């Protein structure tokens, strides 16, 4: 299974990654991170194919993808 490393302490909750994930794996959580944003989380790890579209679209380089 692919592995996402989400450095959610630097996420700004813009939800661009959520919008463009073709498998709808991601979601904006209701936690607050140290920056005061609601960071992204992996909602459905089983569905993730490791395509890295989320990582490429993210303006903050929050996500790393390993396969």
């Amino acid at each position, binding site marked *: 299974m*692919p*592995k996402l490393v989400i450095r959610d302490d*630097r996420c*700004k*909750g*813009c*939800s*661009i990654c959520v*919008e*463009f994930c073709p498998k709808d794996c991601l979601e904006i959580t209701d936690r607050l991170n140290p920056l005061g*944003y609601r960071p992204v989380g992996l909602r459905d790890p089983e569905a993730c194919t*490791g*395509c*890295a*579209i989320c*990582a*490429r*679209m*993210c*303006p*903050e*380089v929050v*996500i*790393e*993808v*390993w*396969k």
Partner: protein
Amino acid sequence: MKPVFVRPQSLTDKPFHFCPGCHHGVIHRLVAEAIDRFGVRERTIAAASVGCSVFLYDYFDIDVVESPHGRAPAVATGIKRTNPDKFVFIYQGDGDLAAIGTAEIIHAANRGENLTVVFVNNTVYGMTGGQMAPTTLLGQPTTTSPYGREFGQDGYPIKMTEMLAQLEGVGFAARVAVDTPARLAQARKAVFRAFETQLEEKGMGFVEILSSCPTNWGMKPLEAVRRIEREMIPYFPLGVYKERKGSDAL
């Protein structure tokens, strides 16, 4: 496990100061990927501009000279001419490149300076609070055109890529966007081509990237992303406007 996507080595680990959803972050990353791809990190010097990208020196693990507003092409000309073995790129916003620095970019392009230019067009002066730029679209409200830009008073949005592509000194000119995964892939290629143009000594490699400024457009990040396709691309068509081929080197 193998990496599918990891942070480019040419970016430092410092988090960006950009607003949520701002495309400056994506564009910084593309440039860092190009530096890594061509293995030029140890010999790269950038000339940064004034605008929201003013902290370029904090985010890239390279040498950066901060230029006065609009003057990055002149600063970069000096760096490249005195250090022709260095790889030199400029990163400028549209207020910087297409307003106060119009003379510098046109003449650097016309002289065929062997530089790579990353031009970030977000249709406003971002850093100073969203004033009208020469690139602001007709009808677009800004803090200095509260009823929308009107051509009778403010003129038309300027198309820099089309203009510069006509100059003999320009080896490569393209306009791209980073609002969808497919366009992002095209943008990455264009940034790489603008790097190669300098490495092959074919004159200026110029890439204009349509970029979002959610804060000064008064939009949420995803609305701002959608505005690029809805309003910007129809007026600023994407594509490669000039590509000097192998044999016709400058």
